[in-house]
């Protein structure tokens, strides 16, 4: 299709060229009548000849420019559409150089040129794939018995479809040969090595990545690919601790072809029919004897399967297992067991691991010195049990000591690992590239949680950005941010009251009225702390939550311009409570959300309730970080919605904080008769039913934007330690609490 486009482009050039020539000649002929009568026919022929030459010249130039190119592209086009048999044949001379054996001391900073990857804003490495070539030796014998395998084709296709891919060899930082070395058994070692060395950018294997799943061969089965490969990175299945170059190689799973063929039904974590299942067929007899002994001791809890002797070999037999003549479907049977044994075979890496994970069965891995797949990033503790081979006989006791809830958690985790990292060649390939990418751009690397938490946990878990248990010192104090419109008298009273609070560090008045200037400086009350007035460009509620540079303290007190009923003791106490809970909203009037069963939606409640899930930001302490979050990270259109409706900015803030911390706000001190703080929003809205209805609407709207109800309900509030205690008031730190 693309080729056709190109061809038509070529044609259109020709016609364009033709047209221009025609035009030129036409132009000439238009002048012709003046010239021609004076010319002899001889001359006319001469002119025609001359123009023919010009025309031919033009055509020739066009041909020269585009001919070779179109040949080139059409050649590639056939390759693209055609089969692997059309790939160019490369004959390897016997004397062709062989790379050195892999260097065990290779690390990213010694054998890899990170500067090729460069600094780029996306923090993404660029990966180049060599075009397919068929390598044969001097006598025309291929270097591999299988050639390009289905799996390697899938892998390379997936990479070429990904963001990592580049077809510009000069910009690439990682090179992937198209020589398939997934299975060492099908390779001729020496010739494969020669083929690698012939790659145009090989350069001692620098920045080259090889994928191998079945390394070694009889009799000793090396745990890494035997093909000499200079400094190339190896993504290998079945590394042992002696061959694995930590921080350089990537340990990958052995892909199980069953993954693509078999769809297993969803199975919830929980107890299963069998406790331990062994389903591998080529188990060493020493281990089989050990397993038999365990079976004798523990009976029905164990199921030991082997291959079926009566079935003919082939693809079908791979899907069956037998025990004493009874036939079981594989891998379906794996779903019937809590734990599944994955024993080392000749190789450390076993495709059975993939099947076991897929079935959500917890793998019990007995393969000493085996580097588990992707162990650089995956926390296998949460999905598997690793037991030393020598302790096979104690397996039952060890597994029995694992709490049920942990087993369920591991089952879920195991299945998620399979889904995310094992299920296809694409998953395996892209995970490998991501790991390499994380090493090259460590500051942009994926986090532990991103790698290891299944979506359901990612969704329900919270990772508070203020996670360090820390009670900040009292000294810096807090900045009071007063949002005001034009109630100057009330504002001045609020300022005078707040200025009595010992820990007040600064007053910031957000003047939200564009039509009126704030009063002259001389008219403002005299206060002992700096007082700044910020004039806003638009009358928006979100202005109160802007992370102004003027706020130099961590603690912010958001307060409305008519909250004059809070005493200095109450405010100071609020600040002290905030210091103990710096990651929460700490406020005075508390509110609650309720589920209205009749209406089937959330309802806002401002009555005297025993529970609290929100505090109003008409008077609340919180960390300045939440200003930043509110302004820049508020999900969906909530911010605009709040500004458009001139309401609910406090509810939005409560949602935001609860969602990111997973914690309830803290209401401080007894309830006061605030004159409906919700109603004091800027325009002095009157207390009416519609206002409350709107706030209920807000809760429903925000819950749908957040996709969940993040608010947490609690039944406690904070009071000073000696509140209402029978103790002399003058000895209490905060005596003036709760007085109306």
């Amino acid at each position, binding site marked *: 299709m693309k080729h056709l486009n190109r061809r038509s482009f070529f044609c259109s050039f020709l016609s364009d060229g033709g047209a221009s020539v025609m035009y030129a000649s036409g132009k000439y002929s238009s002048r012709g009548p003046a010239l021609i009568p004076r010319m002899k026919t001889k001359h006319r022929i001469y002119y025609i000849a001359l123009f023919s030459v010009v025309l031919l010249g033009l055509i020739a130039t066009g041909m020269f420019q585009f001919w070779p190119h179109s040949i080139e592209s059409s050649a*590639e086009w056939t390759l693209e559409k055609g089969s692997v048999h059309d790939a160019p044949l490369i004959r390897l001379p016997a004397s062709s150089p062989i790379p050195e054996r892999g260097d065990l001391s290779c690390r990213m900073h010694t054998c890899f040129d990170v500067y090729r990857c460069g600094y780029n804003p996306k923090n993404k490495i660029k990966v180049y794939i060599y075009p397919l070539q068929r390598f044969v030796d001097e006598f025309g014998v291929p270097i591999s018995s299988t050639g390009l395998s289905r799996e390697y084709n899938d892998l390379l296709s997936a990479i070429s479809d990904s963001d990592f891919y580049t077809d510009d060899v000069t910009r690439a930082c990682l090179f992937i040969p198209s020589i398939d070395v997934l299975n060492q058994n099908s390779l001729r070692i020496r010739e494969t090595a020669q083929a690698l060395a012939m790659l145009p950018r090989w350069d001692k294997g620098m920045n080259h990545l090889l994928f191998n799943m079945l390394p070694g061969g009889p009799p000793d089965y090396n745990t890494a690919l035997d093909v000499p490969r200079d400094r190339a990175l190896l993504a290998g299945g079945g590394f042992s601790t002696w061959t694995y170059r930590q921080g350089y190689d990537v340990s990958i799973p052995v892909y199980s072809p069953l993954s693509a063929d078999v769809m297993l039904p969803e199975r919830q974590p929980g107890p299963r029919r069998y406790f331990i299942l062994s389903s591998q067929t080529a188990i060493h007899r020493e281990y089989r004897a050990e397993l038999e002994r365990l079976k004798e001791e523990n009976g029905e809890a164990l199921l030991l399967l082997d291959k079926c002797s009566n079935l003919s070999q082939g693809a079908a037999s791979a899907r069956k297992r037998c025990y004493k003549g009874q036939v079981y479907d594989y891998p379906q049977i794996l779903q019937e067991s809590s734990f599944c044994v994955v024993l080392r075979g000749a190789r450390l890496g076993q495709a059975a691991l993939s099947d076991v994970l897929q079935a959500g069965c917890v793998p019990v891995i007995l393969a000493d010195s085996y580097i588990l797949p992707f162990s650089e990033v995956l926390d296998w503790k949460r999905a598997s049990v690793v037991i030393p081979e020598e302790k096979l006989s104690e397996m039952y006791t060890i597994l029995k000591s694992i709490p049920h809830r942990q087993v369920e958690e591991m089952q879920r985790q195991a299945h998620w690992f399979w889904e995310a990292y094992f299920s296809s060649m694409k998953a395996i390939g892209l995970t490998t590239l991501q790991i390499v990418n994380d090493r090259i751009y460590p500051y942009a690397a994926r986090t532990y949680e991103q790698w290891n938490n299944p979506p359901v946990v990612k969704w329900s878990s919270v990772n508070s950005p203020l996670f360090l248990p820390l009670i900040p010192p009292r000294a810096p104090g807090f900045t009071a941010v007063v949002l005001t419109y034009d109630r100057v008298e009330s504002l001045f009273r609020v300022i005078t009251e707040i200025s009595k609070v010992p820990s007040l560090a600064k007053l910031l008045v957000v003047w939200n009225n564009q039509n009126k200037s704030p009063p002259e400086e001389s008219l403002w009350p005299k206060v002992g702390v700096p007082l700044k007035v910020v004039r806003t460009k638009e009358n928006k509620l979100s202005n109160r939550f802007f992370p102004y540079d003027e706020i130099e303290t961590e603690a912010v007190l958001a307060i409305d311009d008519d909250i004059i009923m809070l005493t200095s003791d109450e405010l100071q106490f609020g600040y002290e409570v905030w210091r103990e809970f710096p990651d929460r909203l700490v406020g005075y009037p508390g509110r609650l959300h309720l589920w209205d069963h009749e209406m089937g939606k959330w309802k806002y409640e401002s009555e005297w309730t025993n529970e609290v899930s929100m505090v109003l930001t008409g008077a609340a302490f919180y960390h300045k970080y939440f200003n930043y979050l509110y302004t820049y990270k508020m999900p969906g259109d909530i911010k605009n919605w709040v500004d458009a409706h001139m309401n609910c900015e406090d509810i939005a803030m409560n949602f935001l904080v609860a969602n990111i911390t997973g914690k309830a706000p803290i209401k401080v001190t007894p309830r006061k008769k605030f004159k409906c703080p919700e109603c004091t929003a800027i325009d002095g809205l009157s207390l009416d039913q519609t206002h409350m209805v709107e706030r209920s609407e807000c809760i429903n709207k925000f819950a749908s934007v957040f996709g969940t109800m993040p608010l947490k309900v609690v039944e406690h509030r904070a009071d*000073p330690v000696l509140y209402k205690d029978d103790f002399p008031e003058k000895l209490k730190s*905060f005596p003036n609490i709760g007085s109306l």
Partner: protein
Amino acid sequence: MQAKKRYLILLSAGACLALLFYLGGVELPAARRSRQDRSRSGYRPEQPWPHYSDPLHGFVPWDQTDTEDYNLHISARQKRDVNRSVYRGKRCRMDSCFDFSLCQKNGFKVYVYPQQKGEKISESYQNILSTIEGSRFYTSDPGQACLFVLSLDTLDRDQLSPQYVHNLKTKVQSLPLWNDGRNHLIFNLYSGTWPDYTEDLGFDIGQAMLAKASIGAENFRPRFDVSIPLFSKEHPRTGGERGFLKYNTIPPFRKYMLVFKGKRYLTGIGSDTRNALYHVHNAEDVVLLTTCKHGKDWQKHKDARCDKDNAEYDKYDYKEMLHNSTFCLVPRGRRLGSFRFLEALQIPTTVRSIHQDKILSLRQQTQFLWEAYFSSVEKIVLTTLEIIQDRVLEHGSRSSLMWNSHPGGLFALPQYSGYLGDFPFYYATLGIKPYPKFTAVIHAVSPLVSQSQPILKLLVAVAKSQYCAQIIVLWNCDKPLPAKHRWPATSVPVIVIEGENKVMSSRFLPYETIVTDAVLSLDEDTVLSTTEVDFAFTVWQSFPERIVGYPARSHFWDSNKERWGYTSKWTNDYSMVLTGAAMFHRYYHYLYTHYLPTSLKNMVDQLANCEDILMNFLVSAVTKLPPIKITQKKQYKETMMGQSSRASRWADPDHFAQRQTCMNKFASWFGAMPLVHSQMRLDPVLFKDQVSILRKKYRDIERL
């Protein structure tokens, strides 16, 4: 004329051709460029790898697993033996150079060789040894040990150093238990010397494991050696300061973006990195200072930049810079593997690209790591031992989450449970909640004589709580267990356990009968109503990692006596909540029993006192936060001595003095005062509010 015309025509034809070539010549590079463009953006922009559709073979033929019958090969046991003989020395791994069987009988026990007379041991190494000897891993019997630690000082192996121990080779070889270093752990901070700074220790370590500062990747044996931080001899043995981070300011940027201040070396190992730093130095927000003054003869190597650099170096104060910088550069010095010159150049751009949210969390993580693993020699050594223990008990080791999140691996013991949800620390991370019921554990010390005894009232009140799953009565009374019918009938099971040795610490044993996450710990004479119990549990659900309870106490620094004081007076703050009526996570039972040293537990048992203080020390050391007191102060215990049960230990006048002593003893073991003050308590939302009592859920709490 004719000829003239011809020439003219020829000329014009020539001009035309010239024009043509000119046009062609313009076209040529243009065309070439367009070709290049296309080759860069791809001839086949959508399908660069041709996604071959041929029927290809699978990479592993179906019959391969059968033909490779593993049974034909050598036995696995033999294979392990082969590994053990092949992989020695530099290729040591746990599988080949460590004898796991030594750890099977007695668990993970560490033996320290007795110190030989005349052997000098540096202060740092002495700190390491005494930490091990004071830890729960220590054994004095080499027959029980799984890990051996030398009493020969191996910390400083720089031959030019005064601390260098000579003839280490022969001394080590002559140790009777050496066994080629098998199951031995060797600590080292410095190795090699000028000019090549090799990482060799100057004696054959055989199969011993290394816990070494600045190991390069080339010499590090993965999952065998342990890389430890370099620490100075002033590093505190226990406790250690908290991190310096006091505020999480927003935006998180500080005065400087990146700083470094140090020697430049001029020549030799490590000099190329440091010689390059000046390229990035801008004297504004990137301040990288080097001085040439190093060694006696630095003037010899002096280069053109030295005078300027030295002057710049003296302008800045090191501490001021560290405290006011967002990032600190850690370039390699003489020791420590290879780092690249250009990497240093790239840092400011890289650093500037880091998002401020990330800075906020990175900064807090540094503080967590510091406090959990680095702040004292004890933490460094225990971390090393725990890492090795994790390898030995592989199926019972810690997950990365336990190591890398608060409170860290030293406080999260995997032997308690492998399930993260069994700990009080990970509920939020896993998105789960604690089990919604509690187990009450009543500590009974006096015999049951009358039916009006407080313990029976307490039992009934607690059993009525909607959140109560079961009640355990721990019978620590010298009199025999009362008959079953003497206990009141309750709707929840009451389990009576006869205390082991009847000692105080038995109230915090991790009884297997405790199946809930929450434990309500009660004294026999505690007076609590059902409502109070209910409220305590609802509050605890919000703070599952803390102690939540009623009787609060405070500590203070007595500057006259230069020691910690304990007070039960009315105060405006508190730092302890006594376990006579407190709710906390059952994990703290485990931690109390298995983490705390026998010395402290014995002290508690002998005094039959202070167990509650010790529990508060422990929990605050873990959480770094105060406990939570709920509702009003009741007339309680020490203030009403002798009123309730005469036998009460609270009536003993020595009791109070002992508690002062305990405080100081505990503080010295923890190395610092872990208790934290709080100024607030939690009440029910409508507590004493002027609203009808009928609207209040916890109305009983107001009736004192």
